[in-house]
């Protein structure tokens, strides 16, 4: 155990000296916390809230009161015993629940001039002091008060209604999607399956490459020829189109299964590189020595050769993970991946297909998963390149 600790400390000192690598490493740690730890603390927001649809990042519930009460009513506690207007189907109703005993709540329906009293009516009531305060979503305030089309109403509202507490509700960090659900909570929950799938794909393809590559190089002869021919064949297969076709025809139920398929197709290029590495290591003196000692081939492979390739393999493992992620999300963008897990990829797919791309307010729905995926890939690449430099002194020295 102290040996492992010492190694970890040495690794840390090395990575600390490489600025880009440090950024990549810390980024990966951050992603681990975000996708594997944070979901325990942040709840997945699955309830549609009609008033908060495609709200821009930073939107929140605010407290609107009559201009004369602006100083008196700043929080819900101040309002004890009074009447507060809440629009149903917004986050406001859930927000007011803990205070329900102290307040008289008057409910207004969302967006329904026909079906019942709507937000505009609530605002009018507030202006006429029929209610003392109102919970309003910042975007609705913008739409209905500041940009009110009806000049008469505009005047009435501007003269009588103000926001007394602009930071009453929690800010939704990344805004909301087309159903008014909090995007930040989706980002927290949407990474795990995606990253696990990429890990499965990357680890599986690296494993196959290492096994086949070292078998071919160590045993040689006919087996080597067969394996090399097989690899050349697999290299010529248009991999991504094949994945697209298979995913399109099979329509997977399980995202992790997709990772297995990606892994089964992803090994050829690395297998060639591993085979070349083993071939060159095999001729080194220490392997000759081991062989003349009469050590078995498995011993030579696992104890002499593999430890010398471990840096090469681990760097390529990271690159395999990035390409598994690439292929997986590519399939999602085309709409060919399973949609039962609400991953970053699915968010991206919905963000693209539901037209939010063309709505400047809804840009967060597409941009958040895009950035989450992009930065994850960048962190992996930065970390892998730093490893490359650390392991290969030629790259480190000028």
């Amino acid at each position, binding site marked *: 155990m102290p040996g492992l600790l010492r190694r970890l400390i040495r690794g840390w000192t090395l990575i600390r000296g490489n600025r880009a690598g440090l950024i990549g490493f810390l980024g990966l740690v951050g992603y681990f916390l975000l996708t594997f730890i944070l979901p325990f603390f942040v709840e997945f927001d699955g309830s549609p809230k009609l008033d908060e649809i495609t709200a821009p990042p930073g939107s929140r519930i605010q407290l609107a009161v009559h201009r004369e009460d602006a100083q008196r009513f700043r929080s819900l506690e101040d309002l004890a015993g009074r009447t507060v207007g809440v629009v149903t189907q917004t986050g406001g109703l859930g927000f007011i629940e803990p205070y329900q005993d102290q307040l008289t709540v008057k409910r207004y329906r969302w967006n329904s001039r026909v079906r019942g009293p709507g937000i505009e009516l609530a605002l009018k009531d507030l202006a006429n002091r029929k209610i003392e305060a109102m919970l309003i979503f910042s975007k609705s305030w913008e739409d209905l008060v500041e940009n009110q089309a009806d000049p008469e109403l505009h005047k009435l509202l501007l003269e009588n209604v103000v926001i007394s507490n602009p930071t009453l509700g929690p800010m939704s960090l990344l805004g909301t999607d087309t159903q008014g659900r909090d995007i930040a909570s989706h980002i927290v929950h949407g990474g795990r399956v995606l990253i696990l799938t990429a890990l499965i794909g990357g680890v599986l393809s690296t494993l196959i490459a290492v096994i086949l590559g070292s078998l071919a190089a160590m045993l040689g002869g006919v087996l080597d020829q067969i394996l090399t021919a097989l690899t050349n064949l697999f290299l010529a297969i248009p991999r991504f*189109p094949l994945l697209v*076709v298979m995913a399109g*025809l099979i329509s997977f139920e399980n995202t992790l299964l997709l990772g297995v398929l990606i892994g089964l197709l992803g090994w050829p290029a690395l297998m060639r590189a591993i085979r070349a590495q083993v071939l060159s290591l095999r001729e080194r003196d220490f392997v000759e020595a081991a062989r003349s000692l009469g050590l078995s081939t498995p011993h030579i492979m696992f104890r002499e050769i593999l430890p010398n390739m471990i840096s090469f393999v681990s760097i390529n493992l990271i690159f395999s993970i990035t390409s598994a992620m690439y292929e997986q999300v*590519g399939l999602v963008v085309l709409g060919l991946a399973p949609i039962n897990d609400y991953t970053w990829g699915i968010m991206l797919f919905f963000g693209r297909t539901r037209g939010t791309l063309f709505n400047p307010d809804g840009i967060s729905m597409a941009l958040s998963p895009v950035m989450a*995926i992009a930065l994850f890939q960048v962190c992996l690449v930065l970390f892998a390149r730093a490893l490359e430099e650390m392991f290969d002194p030629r790259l480190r020295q000028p």
Partner: protein
Amino acid sequence: MSRILKSYPVQIVLQALLTILAVMTFTFVLIRLMPGNPIEVLVEQILTNEGIAYEEAYDRVAASFDIDPNASLLDQYLAWLWDLLRLDLGESITSPGTRVVDEILRFLPWTVFAVGAGLLISFVLGIVLGMLMAYYRNSSLDYALSLFASFMTGIPNYIWGLLIVIVLGIHLNWFSVGELRGTYDPGLTPGFNLAFLWSVVEHAMLPIVTYVVSALGGWMLNMKSSTMSVLNEDYVNVAEARGLQDSRIIFSYVGRNASLPLFTQLTISIGFVLGSGVVIEEIFVYWGIGHYLFQSITVRDYTSMQGVFLILTMTVVLANVFADLTYGWLDPRVRISGER
């Protein structure tokens, strides 16, 4: 005769043909083994549209098909192979009367144009920037470009495409995403006139930029490490000692030798970029071969899929053959050692 057969170029070409055949056989079997049957897809369509009996709809669809999807796999394969030998890729299963060859010839040029332009521009830029990085290594320029390159290689190309659409197209409004659908403006007659050519370039611009941005970083980093290893070679030191002009050393000694390994990578990357075109062309609604493939998948058009796979595989394999055959010409050292 046997000497001709054993010569290097013939061997390589033979091997390439075998590879193509093997890959096509593999994908043929794989695609046919997949669940979902084009007849069923069409029958479903007819049933929902016209409301006739299942058997009637089935017979009608089956009769209109160029191939018999119920024949044994081997029979289908042999029939397909025989057609292939006559350079006939068959008719589209789902739209009878459309020949797959014609469809491919209609869609392929656009993809070749966009992918080719993207790869060439990124390659040339990458070589220049990579050499700059090697010459100014460990300067702030090098660090900035390295970080930039990591971003470019790390972020998937379709994400770049989406970012371009979202940020440049919608937020900054530099271009109208809707108007750039397709490969040229409708209403223009294809031909050698300025309006048409400009429209073609305009429509291909976004895919090309995407291909360039996503491929550039890789070329830069590879060229940097390649240049750095060449800079340590004796012949560069000798050239400097002889007092040759800097420009001559940079271009003829360092540049030429350092870029050699990258040509091989260029041929390999052609296959990758062509393949990833499926997503890019869907994002920009650019009607190339990837778009055609995606359309064929949604209706389970086996013959069209098979045709696209043939083209993609042939491109990959022939690009490799091209690399093998021209490498000796690019790098005389390989030629000499090969003859010995």
